[in-house]
């Protein structure tokens, strides 16, 4: 009996010890709590955060960039007062603000900016491609010249508006930035001062930076806490949290409870990926077009996504990206008859069993899908294609296994998806002619490849837009993949948390409604 009590007593001691470790919190007063189903997005330093949008958002509260996007997606100055671009020199000149101090009280100046550009050259930072930077020169304490190695249209958005400026006096001695988590690693110039990060609990706490140069920060504390998406609505209703992403089905209920809803611009694409490099029919453009006619994307949106999605555009860029979407992109309306005609033109004959045959071989393809994700979509795609005479075998894989199969072209068809289509069309290059598994790696159409490479170098936005429009038209014609839909995602929040979606996404195009300037009185 004594032993039992001893064991119990040691558990109670352990509970007390564990529960008291770490920060329990700040005053309950002016704190905004934001729910996040994943919780942990890494140590919020530029090198320590996990390389995903939510990681960037948590870092961006502490660190500032040279420029930033406001609610309408317009570029506004942050650490800089103004900038000019000299086309002849291919150089940006930034006139920096003189009233900025780091969170530790040290003054900010041009040396920090130059240091940061040199630092990412030495220690590559995954969010910015430093190869476009020829040199960063300090003209005086508050003026810097950034010369580009070649013309790079998305410079302002994808480099100046993405790269967090690091304090030289701290980072100059850091040789292993990926693992640096020292006390001063989170000293920035941003509107929030780091207070706490708890990796195992998946929580973050920030305090207002009352010396913020842009204006008064009107929230005393900001916290991110781990809450699953399914339980977020209940916690929002009883005020335990102030904002969070919610399942689309509960939007009406929450609206009636007086909460505000933010609908994320649908810019995440679910696609039918096609192995166009295989020696089968999939390499034939008319066959890919036939599949596009055979698939009823409206049915997928209405049944699989319960109406909470927008039908896919054949040109990949979603209509929600109003700046770059081409309204005249040819689309493939559901038309099984036309699909049949196209397949028959390729020499296949429809048999009595409802499938196409050629030289005794049945037209059969494997459709891969990752477990849990897209399974309902895949069932509808299978049904649609089978109705059009294509026999489909549905195979399910663990998601990373499927990514690996797609990367190695070891598949016929797969349902998968990616984000990144709401901002600058540089991401279009990554998902069409880039090297990763998310890219369709399609080089068959030289005109399209050429346009993709040139649009990056076109500094005139109107001409660039024409190029991106043409890319969409060619993509829709070539169909290296079929865009099925763009899901709609929602956030709900109360009056306390005045959050908004940034047009085109935060920074590089992150579709999360937490833009730090929402908390600043400008």
């Amino acid at each position: 009996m004594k032993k039992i009590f001893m064991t119990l007593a040691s558990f109670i001691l352990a509970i007390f010890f564990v529960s008291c470790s770490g920060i329990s919190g700040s005053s309950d007063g002016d704190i905004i709590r934001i729910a996040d189903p994943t919780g942990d997005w890494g140590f919020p330093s530029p090198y320590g955060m996990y390389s995903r949008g939510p990681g960037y958002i948590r870092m961006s509260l502490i660190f500032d960039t040279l420029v930033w996007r406001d609610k309408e997606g317009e570029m506004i100055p942050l650490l800089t007062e103004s900038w000019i671009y000299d086309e002849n020199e291919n150089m940006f000149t930034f006139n920096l603000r003189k009233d900025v101090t780091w969170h530790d009280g040290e003054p900010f100046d041009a040396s920090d900016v130059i240091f940061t550009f040199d630092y990412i050259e030495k220690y590559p930072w995954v969010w910015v491609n430093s190869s476009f930077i020829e040199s960063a020169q300090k003209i005086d304490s508050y003026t810097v010249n950034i010369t580009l190695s070649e013309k790079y249209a998305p410079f302002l958005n994808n480099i100046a508006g993405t790269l967090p400026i690091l304090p030289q006096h701290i980072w100059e001695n850091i040789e292993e930035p990926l693992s640096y988590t020292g006390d001063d690693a989170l000293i920035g110039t941003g509107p929030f001062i780091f207070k706490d990060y708890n990796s195992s609990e998946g929580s973050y706490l920030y305090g207002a930076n009352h010396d913020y140069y842009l204006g008064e920060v009107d929230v005393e504390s900001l916290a991110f806490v781990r809450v699953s998406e399914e339980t977020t609505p209940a916690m929002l209703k009883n005020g335990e949290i102030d904002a969070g992403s919610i399942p689309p089905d509960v939007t009406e209920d929450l609206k009636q409870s007086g909460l505000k809803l933010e609908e994320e611009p649908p810019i995440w694409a679910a696609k039918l990926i096609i192995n166009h490099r295989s020696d089968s029919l999939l390499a034939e453009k008319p066959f890919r077009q036939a599949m596009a006619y055979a698939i009823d994307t409206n049915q997928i949106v209405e049944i699989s996504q319960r109406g909470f999605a927008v039908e896919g555009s054949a040109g990949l860029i979603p209509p929600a990206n109003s700046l770059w979407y081409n309204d005249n992109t040819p689309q493939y309306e559901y038309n099984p008859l036309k699909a049949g005609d196209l397949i028959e033109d390729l020499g296949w004959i429809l048999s009595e069993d409802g499938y196409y045959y050629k030289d005794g071989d049945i037209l059969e393809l494997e459709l891969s899908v990752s477990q849990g994700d897209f399974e309902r979509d895949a069932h509808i795609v299978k049904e649609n294609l089978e109705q059009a005479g294509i026999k489909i075998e549905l195979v399910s894989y663990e998601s990373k296994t499927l990514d690996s199969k797609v990367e190695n072209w070891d598949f016929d068809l797969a349902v998968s998806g990616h984000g990144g289509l709401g901002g600058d069309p540089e991401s279009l290059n990554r998902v069409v002619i880039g090297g990763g598994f998310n890219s369709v790696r399609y080089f068959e159409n030289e005109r399209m490849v050429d346009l993709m490479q040139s649009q990056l170098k076109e500094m005139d936005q109107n001409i660039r837009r024409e190029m991106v429009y043409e890319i969409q038209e060619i993509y829709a014609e070539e169909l290296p993949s079929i865009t099925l839909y763009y899901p709609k995602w929602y956030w709900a929040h109360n009056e306390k948390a005045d959050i908004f979606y940034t047009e085109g996404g935060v920074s590089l195009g992150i579709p999360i409604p937490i833009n730090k300037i929402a908390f600043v009185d400008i």
Partner: protein
Amino acid sequence: MKKKYLSYIIAFIVIITLNFIVPRLLPGDPLNAVYGDEVLLNLSAKTREYISSTYNLDRPVPVQYLLYVTSIFKGNLGYSIYYKKPVIDLLLSCIPYTIILMGLAMFISSFLAVVLGIESGWRRGKKFDKFILFLVIFFSSFPSFFIGAVFLIVFGVILNILPFQGARTMYSGLGGFSLSLDFLLHLILPLFSLVFVFLPSTYLLTRNSMISNLKEPYILLARAKGLDDIRIRYQHAGRNSLIPVATHTGLRLGTMMVTGTLFIEIVFSYPGIGSLIYNSILNRDYPVIQGSFLFITVLVLVINFLMDIFYVKLDPRIEYAY
């Protein structure tokens, strides 16, 4: 005994080798898993090279193995590719939660299972036995995550009487006793879900062992000596029924941690080692997978070793077996 030590050392070497090989047999590589999904990233060749060399992913596999083994003996479990933290720090931040959750669940479930098993075995075929047996078999047929989900929905969402997310209310401004109470309240649902997961097998084993022990001549002798029922039940039959239960618990520890606790931790977003393993497998974070499994391996080996010593106390005859 020497032979026994040697077998532990061989088991350890085989396990650390498997620990190294198995994650690398998973399709997909860590760079793709950690960075590949995010289209917004600029993963240039130079950046890939820098990350690969930082985590030794560019070295040949035998060199990686050598680095892994030598660092284990230096007490260094490597560096997480996804979490960007030393693996040992990650483990140390998760282990206390798992130990408390699993340890308490094992303690409570073993206590309940043994008492119920002894009582059930004693009253074999009677109403009490039939009722308990039915309940236990009913619960044992559910997978652990289902039990967790039912508890979560009933007590957390519908009745809304207990917290069901994480291990405490973060940034609530609580301190001292109320903070510990908050922690305890968060522990209740995952703990009792786990108790229901662990209980059935121990209960059934105790009950069966009790039934066979009750037929032994020493029970007849105890009765003949005129000892009271409680003494016969617990000190004679009950104590001897514990031997297979102890073996069983020791052997099942690894499975309990990975299967039972992992699912329960995920259901309740409880920040233990199960959640860590789950995320690291999804992200092909080799160092964390290796480190977590190494921890479980060492734990199971140590527990088995302790069990070997413990049996001798429970059943002195075992000592003569060596």
